[in-house]
């Protein structure tokens, strides 16, 4: 960790954060980290103690996290709209201290709030004296899984300094991708532009105002950006690169982005909380083929499923058996196609719909539907059916009112023209509410909910 703070000290005048109209330089970051270190000492917070940090993006929240890492603490970043219930989370990880930031993210109150834990993995980890990072995912069964990382190892990936950029962090700090982004941007002495909400208008405004060069986003957000025509109202000419991850990109959205932003490099990213974020390079033909890997990562494909071996892998789950095999390979559960050194990610095995024994990938159908007139967004999922096992259901958001019967006819006609018969949606339902979560990730469920399962894919930013 010290290397990162030393790097900050080499550029004291450079702006590290732009937050709520104030600029915080790297010099100020070093000062603030020092100030928080003093506070930790005053509280008597020692090496190996677990500290939950509740707050959304602000320079102070990030500085406290750096101070805790430097102090050898185990950090649990939490946000106010956390996917996981706080009490459920802390019951798994245990906790010694709780640091609560106010809404503005400036002031923090640190109190001792012990929640006992005799987790053997944590106990073993503490003996190393290394700083820890605990993140929660809601897991495929809905039961939260706690992921323990060695913070130093996560940061180590950014020791090799890359060119600095002005970027908006998109994923939250309680998400591996969020932490990865902050380390990537500050590790290269770039500028983090924070936004108070992730609406299209707010993000576009921030891009225009702060001449943002890099926008890491989700395909859902980018689809929404195109539909709401944010690019027509705001000057987005500063953008040099848009990265997208966490879910499969619809080809139609990618095509439209390429046409609208010819000067912008579009880059798919790939990563998982368990193994970290891989370096990636999209094939430069506007396709979804991507080369992934980079130093410290190895990939292999077994039965069309991608496996990853990583030097930056988690220490382990606190409350679940390891998913690494004896040789350290991790099953991503993502089905891929392979073309030489390029992969095309088809989607999670668990998202696959089984229609009478035939496998259907939702994204393939979503692609066709999204290209139709009057469709703002679509989520395709399976529904139990006694005749076929499952049927394909398309939930759509329309731009203008249209009878559902008409929409279904158009969707079925388009799908019949382009897809095998079993992939054609048997059911079409109209949705009044958006199909993505508050974090701009698609909800493939019968009933959309405000907050969906935490994404397993966390890829966000790979400079």
């Amino acid at each position, binding site marked *: 960790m010290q290397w990162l703070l030393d790097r900050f000290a080499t550029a004291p005048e450079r702006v590290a954060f732009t937050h709520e109209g104030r600029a915080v330089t790297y010099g100020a970051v070093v000062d603030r980290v020092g100030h928080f270190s003093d506070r930790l000492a005053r509280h008597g917070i020692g090496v190996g103690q677990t500290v939950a940090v509740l707050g959304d993006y602000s320079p102070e929240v990030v500085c406290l996290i750096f101070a805790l890492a430097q102090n050898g603490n185990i950090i649990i970043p939490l946000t106010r709209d956390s996917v996981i219930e706080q009490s459920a989370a802390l019951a798994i990880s245990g906790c010694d201290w709780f640091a609560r930031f106010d809404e503005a993210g400036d002031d923090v109150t640190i109190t001792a709030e012990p929640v006992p834990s005799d987790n053997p993995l944590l106990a073993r980890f503490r003996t190393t004296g290394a700083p820890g990072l605990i993140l929660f995912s809601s897991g495929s069964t809905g039961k939260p899984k706690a992921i323990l990382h060695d913070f130093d190892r996560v940061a180590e990936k950014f020791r090799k300094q890359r060119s600095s950029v002005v970027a908006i962090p998109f994923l939250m700090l309680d998400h591996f991708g969020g932490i990865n982004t902050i380390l990537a941007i500050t590790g290269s002495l770039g500028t983090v532009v924070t936004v108070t909400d992730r609406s299209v208008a707010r993000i576009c405004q921030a891009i225009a105002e702060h001449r943002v060069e890099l926008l890491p986003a989700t395909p859902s957000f980018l689809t929404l950006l195109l539909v709401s025509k944010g690019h027509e109202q705001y000057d987005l000419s500063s953008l040099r690169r848009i990265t997208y991850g966490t879910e499969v990109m619809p080809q139609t959205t990618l095509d439209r982005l390429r046409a609208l932003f010819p000067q912008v490099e579009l880059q798919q990213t790939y990563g998982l909380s368990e193994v970290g974020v891989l370096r990636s390079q999209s094939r430069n033909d506007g396709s979804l083929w991507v080369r992934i890997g980079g130093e410290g990562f190895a990939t292999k494909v077994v039965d069309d499923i991608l496996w990853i071996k990583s030097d930056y892998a988690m220490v382990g789950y606190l409350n679940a058996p390891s998913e690494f095999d004896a040789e350290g390979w991790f099953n991503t559960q993502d089905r891929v196609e392979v073309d030489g050194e390029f992969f095309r990610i088809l989607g999670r095995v668990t998202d696959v719909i089984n229609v009478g024994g035939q496998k259907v990938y939702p994204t393939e159908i979503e692609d066709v539907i999204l290209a139709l007139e009057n469709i703002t967004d679509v989520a395709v999922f399976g529904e139990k059916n006694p*005749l*076929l096992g499952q049927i394909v259901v398309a939930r759509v958001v329309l731009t203008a009112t249209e009878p559902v*019967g008409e929409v279904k*006819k158009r969707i079925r*006609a388009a799908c019949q023209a382009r897809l095998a*018969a079993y992939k054609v949606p*048997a*059911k079409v339902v109209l949705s009044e509410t958006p199909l993505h979560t508050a974090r701009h990730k698609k909800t493939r469920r019968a009933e959309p909910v405000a907050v969906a399962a935490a994404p397993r894919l966390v890829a966000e930013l790979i400079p």
Partner: protein
Amino acid sequence: MLTEIEIQGIILRALENVNEELDADSKVAVGADTCLFGSDAALDSLSLVSVIVDVETEVSTAAGRQISLTDDRAMSREVSPFSDVHALTAYIAALLAETV
């Protein structure tokens, strides 16, 4: 309360919708005797499922309550409700006649 004629109308409309999608040489003769499921069925299982889903949706909307045509009850009846349009009409009418 939906009459049997209204119910049959919903089924025939659903069949016609599917018919529109089919090639000229595989179109189904749509009528009260049209066989839906079984060895004489005019429709393949994918088309049938689409018809059933349409009928379920339409009837549920018109009757103001949810009905299921593919639950265990429907699937385990001795005379399949999907043998022809008559049978399906009678089955839906019986479902709707039940007090909730």
